[in-house]
């Protein structure tokens, strides 16, 4: 345990301004160094890699291809190349390269991932989608990253938008949206087999095969297995959170005519994880640890139809079914989701493009009781109706555009929610884009805040128990966000800056009730009720820089800073201080990718995360380094040797002690992987 003496505001300010100055100098240096480079006219296309070019949809009808550089939002794309060269074996690991996204590993199978603050094991202000299917669980309002084991070789890109994505994606995209897009079958043809083993990533293996079905369809199917070792306790022993997961999936894409495309995709997974949690025991002086083997499983099936009316109009209809069975030491649940979505895009007059959509979702959740957690009622079905509309208006063609939109949702908890936003995009020159946005978003209450009864002991306070009760009257949390940004894309370097100022209202906090004695021998129980009594502001800046100093060397840096100023007068700011202290104020990431002769690649990834001073965290700031040596030995064979978290024996990143999870630390590790491809 590393006690943090607490933050001194002067020290924090000077550290922040020091970082800012360093960042600014780096950016200026990069600019000066490449100023001499041939500054000829460059369309964005030549800045794309071949893989990116291959992913662009073209047709003789000259359809519009939306480039991320046009987005008037804080957008970042993790490409398939970025993932391959990062050495990441899971999506949260890859997310660490995105500015404005907080990623902290709690244990082998638990992650705290958020955008622009409010990080926690189940961070409720970040919406995550996989090919348009939501993996945000509305029962406990969060994403269970362990169960979203994705075959990374199938990922075409991961689109990350920080800031409210409400008008297009709806509620709960309050602080950000992550959309994981997998490759169409045609991009995964032939055979692929990977096998790897390591110290923490015990076993990794996958096999995929893609082929053609007749002349107009392609399919791809895969099998995947991963096993992850347990993390370490602060004392250096082994934790009890190892897990293993097997997955099978596939996809068929059928293009019977130039204007119609159909996709059917699905997957099925099964696995188990070990887990432990502190539980209240009759003996108040001690705490019991419940160890369990937790099963997880699930599957989904998604069908999509894409119809092109003209080069300015198309329609997408999608339906999916998702089932998720998940257990952790403190709770278990089964969730069935049925979803129908329709989206239509068309031009209105000569200046406008309208996108509108309708959606319906039915979520049936069944939470199984454990000694620690109970939901009342245990089973519930909830319906969600949504409508969104967005209008992009060319004020000055190709230079200035105004985008206004809103999402309207009707949910079973809070009734109708309206989430409007307005954005302005100014492109004074091909290479420069400036944008500004004002939006409102809500986070609708989950079943967790309404129906839960969570009772557990807290490690740091033996003899006491905390009992958190849900509140049926809990209202939606609200956000008004003001954002702006600037993007520059040059021949050899690119720069992306996003600034934001968020005003939150009706944030959830817990108000303590009267403590009472319970049990025999008695221990003190402090009841808490969830209420909407916290509010405040957050603001910050995120920078992403890309620089290619040499043809064989590419650097990508990301820097984020975040300030949270929350108030919850009802507890004298105790809870707000804790929420503020769970997200780092500064984060930095620098990736270097070097290509050497004979197919060798050396990739280094340096990361810095500021400390978490919250009372129940006390996580010190850390620097970490990942290194990858890749070798494309022959046309078909490639090898990876990856070392992760190399700078420390082990280090903590986040604790979930409020959920009774014992503290765990992430160890230094390495793995080796062989990949065979054949077409």
């Amino acid at each position, binding site marked *: 345990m590393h006690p943090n003496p607490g933050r001194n505001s002067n020290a924090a300010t000077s550290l922040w301004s020091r970082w800012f100055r360093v960042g600014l100098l780096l950016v200026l240096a990069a600019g000066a160094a490449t100023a001499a*480079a*041939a500054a*000829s*006219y*460059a*369309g964005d*296309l*030549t800045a*794309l*890699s*071949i*893989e990116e*070019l*291959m*992913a*662009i*949809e*073209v*047709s*003789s009808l*000259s359809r*519009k*291809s939306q*480039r991320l550089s046009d987005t008037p939002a804080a957008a970042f794309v993790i490409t398939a190349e970025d993932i391959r060269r990062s050495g990441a074996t899971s999506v949260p690991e890859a997310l660490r390269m995105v500015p404005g996204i907080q990623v902290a590993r709690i244990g082998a199978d638990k992650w705290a991932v958020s955008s622009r603050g409010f990080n926690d094991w189940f961070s409720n202000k970040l919406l995550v989608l996989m090919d348009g299917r939501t993996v945000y669980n509305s029962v406990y309002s969060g994403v269970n990253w362990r169960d979203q084991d994705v075959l990374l070789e199938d990922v075409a890109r991961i689109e990350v938008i920080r800031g409210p994505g409400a008008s297009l994606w709806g509620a709960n995209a309050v602080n950000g949206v992550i959309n994981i897009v997998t490759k*169409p079958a*045609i*991009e995964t043809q032939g055979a692929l087999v990977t096998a790897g083993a390591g110290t923490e990533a015990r076993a990794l293996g996958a096999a995929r095969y893609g082929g053609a079905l007749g002349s107009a369809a*392609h399919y791809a199917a895969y099998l995947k297995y991963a096993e992850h070792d347990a993390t370490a306790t602060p004392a250096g022993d082994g934790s009890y959170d190892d897990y293993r997961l097997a997955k099978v999936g596939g996809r068929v*894409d059928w*293009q019977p005519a130039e204007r119609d*495309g159909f996709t059917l995709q699905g997957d099925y997974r099964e696995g188990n994880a070990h887990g432990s949690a502190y539980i209240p025991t009759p003996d108040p002086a001690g705490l019991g640890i419940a160890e369990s083997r937790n099963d997880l499983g699930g599957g989904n099936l998604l069908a999509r139809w894409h119809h092109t009316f003209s080069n300015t109009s198309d329609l997408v209809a999608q339906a999916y079914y998702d089932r998720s069975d998940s257990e952790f030491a403190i709770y278990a649940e089964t969730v069935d989701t049925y979803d129908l979505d329709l989206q239509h895009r068309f031009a*209105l*007059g*000569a*200046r*406008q493009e309208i996108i509108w959509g309708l959606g319906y979702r039915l979520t049936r959740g069944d939470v199984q009781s454990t000694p620690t957690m109970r939901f009342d009622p245990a089973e519930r079905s909830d319906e969600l109706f949504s409508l969104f509309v967005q*209008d992009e*208006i*060319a004020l000055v*063609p*190709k230079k200035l555009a*105004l985008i*206004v939109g*809103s999402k309207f949702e009707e949910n079973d908890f809070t009734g109708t929610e*309206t989430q*409007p*936003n*307005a954005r302005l995009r100014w492109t004074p020159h091909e290479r420069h884009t400036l944008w500004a946005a*004002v939006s*409102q978003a809500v986070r609708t209450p989950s079943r967790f805040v309404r129906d839960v009864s969570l009772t557990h002991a807290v490690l740091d306070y033996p003899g006491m128990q905390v009992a958190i009760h849900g509140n049926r009257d809990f209202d939606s949390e609200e956000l*008004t966000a003001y954002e702006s940004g600037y993007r520059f894309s040059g*021949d050899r370097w690119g720069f992306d800056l996003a600034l934001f100022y968020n005003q939150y209202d009706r944030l959830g906090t817990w108000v303590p009730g009267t403590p009472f004695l319970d049990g025999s021998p008695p221990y003190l129980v402090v009841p808490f009720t969830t209420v909407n009594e916290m509010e405040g502001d957050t603001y910050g800046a995120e920078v992403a820089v890309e620089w290619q100093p040499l*043809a064989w060397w590419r650097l990508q840096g990301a820097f984020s800073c975040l300030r949270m100023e929350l108030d919850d007068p009802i507890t004298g700011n105790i809870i707000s201080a804790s929420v503020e202290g769970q997200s780092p104020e500064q984060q930095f990431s620098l990736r270097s990718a070097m290509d050497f002769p004979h*197919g060798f690649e050396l990739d280094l990834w340096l990361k810095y995360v500021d400390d978490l001073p919250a009372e129940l965290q006390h996580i010190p700031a850390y620097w970490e380094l990942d290194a990858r040596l890749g070798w*494309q030995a022959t*046309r078909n064979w490639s090898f990876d040797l990856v070392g992760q978290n190399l700078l420390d024996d082990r280090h903590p990143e986040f604790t979930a002690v409020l959920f009774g999870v014992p503290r765990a630390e992430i160890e230094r590790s390495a793995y080796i992987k062989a990949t065979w*491809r054949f*077409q």
Partner: protein
Amino acid sequence: MRLKRSIYMLMAGWLLWSAAGPAMAEAPPASEYQIKAAFLYNFAKFIEWPADAHVADAQNFTIGILGPDPFGPDIAVIEGKPVKGKPLHVVRGHTLEELKGCQVLFIGALSAAELAQSLKHISARPVLTVGEGEGFAHQGGMIRLMTVENRVRFEINVQVADRARLKISSHLLRLARIVSTDDANESQ
């Protein structure tokens, strides 16, 4: 509350304004041939020419278009871009003689006989041949660009490229479909 209302009023105002606005001619965004031009640029980047091709000595890096030109103005997206330290330059011509100094030769839609002739003439010369026709790579062309399922793909005939001593990076090979010259068309 006030904010929401302002946004709605803004929306309503704009809908009325733009419905009455004048028609505008908008330049089309990234088209098929702009993207294929970007591919040509990438091919140039990921291929090494032999020393006697004198790529280092030339003033420009030249891409020649032989025959009917499907790119038109779309080729402009790569004009002037730096390749191997030189600005990229595009020339058009109807005979191989006119396009002598090119490092890359894009062959437009020629008849089968004309194509076979042209390929035979420049075979073993360090010039990257790119085309679009269905049998282009099978007939001895080096890279064939094609559109499959609305996305651009390419085939590479590595044998022919090897014979011309052009070194294609493994990166490019990995993304291509590899084909070989049809036995029926092997002239040697």
